[in-house]
């Protein structure tokens, strides 16, 4: 059980890194237009 003391923070930090990446991406406007990019590949 003691491993949890190590694993819990590791899991949270890892999760937090991904949440942070998501926040960064959303702030950069990556999710502002979800409709056009899928069609873009068909056009070039």
């Amino acid at each position, binding site marked *: 059980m003691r491993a949890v*003391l190590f694993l819990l923070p590791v899991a949270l930090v890892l999760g937090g890194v991904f949440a942070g990446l998501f*926040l960064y991406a*959303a*702030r950069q*406007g990556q999710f502002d237009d979800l409709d056009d990019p899928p069609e873009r590949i068909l*056009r070039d």
Partner: protein
Amino acid sequence: MEGEADAFCCGGCEAAAAIIRGAGLDRYYAERAACPPRPEALAGAWTSVPVEARRDGTVAARLVVDGLRCASCVWVTERVLERTPGVVEATVSYATGRATLRWDPAVTGLGTLAGRIAALGYRPRPLGEEAAPDRDLMLRLGVAGFAAMNIMLLAATIYTGWWDGMDPAWAGLFRWTALVLATPVALWCAAPFFSGAWAGLRHRVLHLDLPIALAVTVLYAHGVAATLAGRDGYLDSLAMLVTLLLAGRLLESRGRRRAAEAAMSLAAAVPGTARRAAGGRLETVPVEALRPGDRIDAGAGEELAADGVVVEGSGQVRMALLTGESEPVVVARGDRVVAGAVLQDGAITVEVRAVGRETVLQQMAAGLQHSADSGLRPTAADRIAPWFTAATLVVAAVTCAVWLGLRGVDTAVARTVAVLVVACPCALALSQPLAAAAGLGAAARRGLLFRSAHALLDLDDVTLVALDKTGTVTAGVPVVTTAGDATLRVAAGLERYSTHPIARAIVAEAIRRGIPLPRGTGVREQAGVGVTGVVDGRPWRLRRGGPGEVLLLDDAGSRESIRLADAVRPDAAQTIAALRGLGRRVVLLTGDHPDVARRIARTAGVDEVVAGAEPAAKVSAIQGFRSAGHRVLFAGDGLNDGPALAAADVGVAMGHGAASSVLVADGVIAGDALGPLVAGFQAARACRAAIRANQRRSLAYNALAVTAAALGWVNPLVAAVLMPLSSGMVIWGASRVEARVRRREE
């Protein structure tokens, strides 16, 4: 171009071609010599467009680009922008007509970039007032989702400990971790619900956000207290609930924004720039910089940027945008012209009389829009909210009182909290937006765009469909009905250079019959009079005969006639039969002569006709139907249809019609067809059914869950299972909308 109809990929190409071969040829080049060789920067309004500073020193902004008609328009615009010095990134969305630009402010400016776009023949304009992207909701959803997943993992561990036993120290660690994760969810992610509830309270409306805010407060407060006391709380339910509700809200706002954007870009008609003649030179200025008294030039194919009076030149102006009539009007010195009208051919100089909001077009649009905005209507779920909240509070109070008497304070608090937790109308709040998004999507995929879910739902109540004639039941452009092959061949040879609707009809018919087009030489088009030219070595004249007739004359006195008429849309009869099949009464409502109206009605299969109706008479006819107990849908495309569109319960505009009709309408048919109306009715019915079923399900869930909680059968684990079940039920209900519409189509 050889042997092809005048079909251009976009306004830019069409304008360019029209300018080069049009009547204003020499004039165009004379003006061009006066222009600087590079596209000039557009000053003025562009400096006030908000830009977003990025950390790397670049700035970004979004613009609307009107006139993008095809994928290559997008491609060209992007490439040209990317090659402009200073531009870091340029993307143009075909779906929304939005350009996202990122550039180095030290090298270039937004005015220059807009000038580059304008030079391609497209019309950039500032975004103006627009709903901000859902970035804020997206961020909150991301944080809530992250917290929810981690809390659920921790909760699963704690619940397992109920059976296997767990060291209180470990359980405490997990509970505290969950509390830390849940705190931003309750305090930041759930903020939209608190502000919604508060705004509702201030306006003395009980919004559905209120019981949600109440549940979130109780959940979090209980979570804190339970963690301090070393007991299990409902923090996992809290995080999941907020996540689901935010997802629903995001979906709703995306759907609404897309519908509004689609309608607005169809409506955007006035060009963003004008060519102003000042002191012997010509400069390109944004429309906002124009003042009454300025003189602006317009060439063939251009849209007029302002209202005014023609002071020089002549040409044919198409006012389809304003009146919905495709027939061009001849204008010359002294005639009034309005913004948004298209100069079909010729070249004119206009002295500006009114600009911007003062123009006829904008005033009409604003007036009609105002009458259409009757304020936000409460959804069915909002109407349930007051008594839902009251019932929850009463049940909670009774539960508290009864258990206080039977078992004492601890049990009473636990059961009351359980009641308040499971009473959270999460599923109820999701029921409308999910089904509405599915319904709006199903209608949009079939070519009918709705401004709001209300309009779509109102469609289900419609009992009578009133259709305008020109441009709605008919295509609104002339089609050749009778002409000899030889006549048509010569006429097409003369008309192949013209963009006039009649010319297009003649050329299109010749191509349809497989007649090789001869090349007319020495062709001269005289606005409002006709065309002269030489075909097969003989001179010919094309003149207007009577209404719907064009005469081909030669010097020897031969006289051949080509008859044209506005044809019924190919899918009109089928659509009208389908509307009847859905139990709707169909009426043709037109300002045209009764004979014409009846002929069209017969072809389209309509047996009720109200003919000779002026715009005011259309409104009173609709009001008459309404007072007779009908719910009326009116579909039309002209400016004069605006009042009728506003008077009807549901107004549907044709996307190719007048901009003002698009602005005032509840829905817009995106394509050039009538068929999407039927799909709209089917989507409305499926959507309504899904919402009703979802509301029944979620209310039944709430009743059951609250009863169980009041009896003491609900603990954190039961709540964690029940809540996603109820939301899943609602999501499943909404997901069946598309399938239902598809089944009806078969």
